[in-house]
């Protein structure tokens, strides 16, 4: 095994060392990985908070997500209850242990059954909380973990994602900044899912079909 590793790296090095000395290259790599220079940030998302939230909603709707804005977490149960009734869905949902979601007053929706934990593929409606939003493309940044299990993002037919207005950033780079850091480095959750609209396919004659393998519908609730 290590022989193959050695031979692949030696072949690469053989070709590259001719162009620049190894020490010089090592320095360039260390600088890049240490400095992590930011590239070109589209102006599109560089807006004031409220305009940014509006752009996020506009871009999300453009990719077939539906968007509702509420002022408080306690409005979420009612908002989801209405969504279930509008779509003739049973009063059942699954979600993780997210504290902001748990804090909402779910007793307001008396008939609602709430399952907690990852999805086993039999859930019609899943609710998650996003870590951040990206206004330039209407994208949600989801971080894996017991608070928001990854399976809910992909297995539920209807995925309802709650996001705090203050977590909506203008661009992808700023959204990366929402993840936890240790010694100045981003701590990556096991999975980070950028989600931009419900699942889709164009594999049959290039026709746009929603609900390929993941959710058929994506509902975003912006809080604040």
């Amino acid at each position, binding site marked *: *095994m290590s022989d*193959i590793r050695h031979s692949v*790296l030696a072949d*690469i*090095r053989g*070709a*590259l060392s*001719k*162009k620049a000395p190894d020490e010089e*290259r090592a320095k*360039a*790599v260390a600088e*890049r*990985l240490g400095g*992590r220079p*930011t*590239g*070109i940030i*589209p*102006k599109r998302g560089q807006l004031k908070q409220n305009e940014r939230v509006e752009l996020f909603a506009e*871009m999300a709707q453009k*990719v077939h997500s539906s968007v509702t804005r509420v002022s408080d977490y306690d409005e979420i149960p009612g908002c989801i209850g209405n969504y279930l009734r509008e779509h003739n869905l049973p009063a059942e949902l699954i979600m*993780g242990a997210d504290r902001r979601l748990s804090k909402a007053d779910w007793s307001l929706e008396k008939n609602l059954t709430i399952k907690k934990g*990852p999805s086993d593929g039999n859930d019609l409606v899943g609710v998650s909380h996003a870590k951040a939003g990206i206004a*330039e*493309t*209407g994208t949600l940044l989801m971080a*894996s*973990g*017991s608070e928001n*299990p*990854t*399976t809910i*993002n*992909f297995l539920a037919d209807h995925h309802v994602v709650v996001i705090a207005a203050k977590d909506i950033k203008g661009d*992808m*780079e700023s959204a*990366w900044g929402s993840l936890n850091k240790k010694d100045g*480095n*981003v701590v*990556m959750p*096991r*999975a*980070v*899912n*950028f*989600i*931009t609209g419900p*699942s*889709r*396919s*164009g*594999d*049959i*004659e*290039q026709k746009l*079909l929603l609900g*390929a*393998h*993941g959710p058929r519908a994506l509902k975003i609730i912006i809080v604040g």
Partner: protein
Amino acid sequence: MELTSHNLKSNVKDALGNEQLQKALSNVPKGFIDKRAKAAAALDEFEELRDKGREIKDHTLANLDLYLEAYEQKVIENGGHVHWAKTADDARRIALEICQKHNAKTVTKGKSMITEEVELNEHLLENGIEPVETDLGEYIIQLRNEKPSHIIAPAIHLNQGQIEEDFRRVHTHLEEDRDMSEPETLLAEAREVLRKRYFEADVGFTGANFLVAETGSSVIVTNEGNGDLTQTLGKVHVVMASIEKVVPTLADCSQILRILARSATGQDMSVYTTFSTGPKREKDPDGPKEYHVILLDNGRSDMLGTEFEEMLRCIRCGACINHCPVYHSIGGHAYGSIYPGPMGSVLTPSLAGVEKAGTLPNASTFCGRCESVCPMRIPLPKMMRHWREKEFEQHLQPKAARYGLAIWAYFAKRPKLYRALVSFAMPALSVLGGTRKRISSLPLASGWTKHRELPAPEGRTFMQAWDQREALKQEAN
């Protein structure tokens, strides 16, 4: 990599005469060209980002060994395993060993061109393991026992009716009167069948659009969500990726993501972009128990430092294919390589050798559209010309082409004779063109005129037209 590129000429003939294929291919320009143009125009910084993308990849390629080592270290820190493969054989062997270690019966697969390149499915089947393709397009072609005809739209050579027939043939549980005439019902059927397979799978294979050295993450970009179900629900996640997929940082990856989907499908972002970093963690409720990465070279390190190095910037968006008039006419299978179109005409000879695939760069009109839309600004026509030169130098062209060129060279080196000949030929061809000014059949040119008409010359040679223009200028003075 199984190749039938040496049959290019007869493949093309079959493709041009295939009505179903021609009908399906008419969807290619309709579906891709306008969407890309609109998406590119809607982002002010698009052209700047293309320059940035080129710069990021050039920097990475110049330090590829170091970035691969940095990436490997991060994967290990996150609890993953890294395996190195020099050849396709190595990659297949390692993949099989991982499957056998876990007594795998079935494996699910997200869409991956690298596993096509190393023919992983065939190898698993030979060893009693069932691979299940989960991307809708890949699933369809697996039912048909075909190869993908496009790197991002594998079943683009098919029409809805053909797919319906395949579903009825294989999905024998379907009742005869069930209406399957709409794409929606076909998708629903595939979704239902595949849902079970994700949960049964022992191992989930994906490719990678990027490997991030800063964090040790593998990145996949998809629309359907199948790749994510594959890598989340399998007990073991195996990423197979070629060495040039590495990028330095998350910031660098973000730059290239902005041009990838826009160039590919005209979306601002694909629906799902997922960064996977190691296996399931202590408190995680879901995710794979093991995480493996197989890093494949398979000829790529040989391209470094050569005139084909820039091809390693390719991010597999498919824009060059979508805009290629030759691809529009013949589809992907005619190229006889899983990498079709302009990118394939450069990459396939690089990986398989000019003697096996040197004919592919001839399937080009050199119109330059591919280079004009390539997000990584890869000079595809220039590199196809390099391959043509190599093909000529190694005497690999067919006799007719060599003799034809020799005859042309004989006249081209004797300008007086050349001019005398063309000043006779041009008026003759012009007359042949008739009032429509098109020639529909011509001796020795039936290869051209069988499928399209040859525009007739105006009647004068370039030199005659030039002389006349100069004379008129003189008069005016």
